[in-house]
């Protein structure tokens, strides 16, 4: 059952095409990893999948069962957030906001969902801590919990492990895998880390201003582009 079908889609900023020729589909339960160099159009594509950016050409078909208010999204952190006075709990609960519509306050159910995700990610000890005083890995977990609060069927992650040390990175990958396998949430992740991408994801989409590979992770390793890119990673 296809959740997202991309048909020959292109994205452009002010007339300059950033990425073009996108043809792929994401099925329910998939774990898709979007890889590619800086400026290859990965984050732009995520914005397109979220409906924040309209394709300049082609189409993105989003299945009816996927409502925007039920898509979890974990964006890259902004500078302003680094010194934001908010408790982790406040941040996590704000993930429920999309599903509230115009209703101004959170219900008991929203709080229960927030608590559940706090437990799931093992961050109960952080809930009353100040967001700006958490370490990078803890902040990412809080943001992941927030994304899970919004999640229905699809979770989009934009470089969730950027700037984290190897141990924390590994933990985060395991968490995401758990979310994919145990909760049955479809995961689409942007990453620089090709090795982990191949290890955890079942599908790979490789971009370089255009789509140069889409298929299963095993095929990717066998393909020329995959071997080259994974070999190239060592030099980075």
């Amino acid at each position, binding site marked *: 059952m296809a959740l997202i079908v991309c048909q020959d889609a292109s994205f452009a900023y002010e007339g300059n095409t950033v990425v073009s020729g996108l043809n792929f589909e994401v099925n329910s339960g998939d774990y898709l990893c979007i890889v590619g160099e800086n400026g290859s159009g990965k984050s732009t594509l995520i914005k397109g999948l979220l409906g924040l950016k309209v394709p300049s050409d082609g189409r993105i078909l989003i299945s009816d069962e996927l409502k925007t*208010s039920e898509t979890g999204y974990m964006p890259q952190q902004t500078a302003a957030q680094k010194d934001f006075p908010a*408790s982790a709990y406040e941040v996590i609960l704000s993930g429920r906001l999309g599903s509230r519509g115009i209703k*101004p306050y959170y219900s008991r159910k929203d709080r229960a969902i927030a608590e559940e995700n706090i437990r799931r990610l093992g961050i109960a000890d952080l809930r009353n801590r100040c967001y700006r*005083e958490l370490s990078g890995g803890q902040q990412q977990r809080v943001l992941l919990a927030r994304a899970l609060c919004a999640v229905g069927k699809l979770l989009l992650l934009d470089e969730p492990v950027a700037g984290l040390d190897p141990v924390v990175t590994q933990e985060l990958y395991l968490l995401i895998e758990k979310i994919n396998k145990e909760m049955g949430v479809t995961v689409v992740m942007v990453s620089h880390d090709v090795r982990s991408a191949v290890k955890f994801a079942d599908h790979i989409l490789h971009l370089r201003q255009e789509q140069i590979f889409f298929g299963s992770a095993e095929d990717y390793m066998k393909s020329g582009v995959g071997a080259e890119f994974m070999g190239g990673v060592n030099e980075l």
Partner: protein
Amino acid sequence: MIDTLREMFSYTFLVRAVVVGLLVALCASLLGVSLVLKRYSMIGDGLSHVGFGTLAIATAMNAAPLTVSIPIVLLAAFFLLRISENSKIKGDAAIALISTSSLAIGVMVISLTTGMNTDVCNYLFGSILAMSNDDVTLSIILAVVVLGLFVLFYNKIFAVTFDETFARATGVRSGLYNMLIAFLTAITIVLGMRMMGALLISSLIIFPALTSMRLCKKFKTVTVCSAIVSTLCFFCGVVISYIKATPTGASVVLVNIAAFLLFSALRYVPWAKLKSRFLPPKETGMPDRPDSHEREVS
């Protein structure tokens, strides 16, 4: 002290000024938290200068100052927001451009009509005598609207302040709420401007938020704390200005500076040590107290 206060409030103009001032201080401090965190502090400053220009024009036309100013400043808020969202134009430069232009227009209009006199000084630095009875009614209505909308949209304002992209991605109309914040700010600034002065009104927005951020670690406590700090500082400022016959706006700002310094100093008090010495140790709970969060060295 009680006698001084009683004497002070026997003047109706002072009662009016204090009522409106407290409401404005409250609104400004609530909005200020969001504006400071969104790096929009300059918008408040820009709007107050636009307000100065419109005030001068309104006086020249013999029109009611608030009814002329509010629509124009709302319009300015809309444009300033657009400018800072559009990355092509440098936001801060554009705001400086607009604020100095309105300042110049205002000064020109005043000098051509009434001539450069105490009016200019009153507009720039505020006057406690500025409030008429009609103004008070309108101010109270608008302040209540601002407060009501803020409380109603508190969660949305938090989400949009913390992470606009995420809010937008999950279906919150962040553009709408940005506009709401800007509009509420515009109204608050126009209401408080004549008392605090065009040059000083933005301090009501920025100071309480920054002061409470010295100590508070949650968005909710920051918001509540800055509301309390702001109203207290305003009241103390007015009382001081009455006793010492100093300008109201400047007195309020000075009290705010004192509060800011006090909170900054309190930050360095070793709360955890004091607590462990005077209070029996407690394992969990105590979410809101600043002393329960020790700084983590990461």
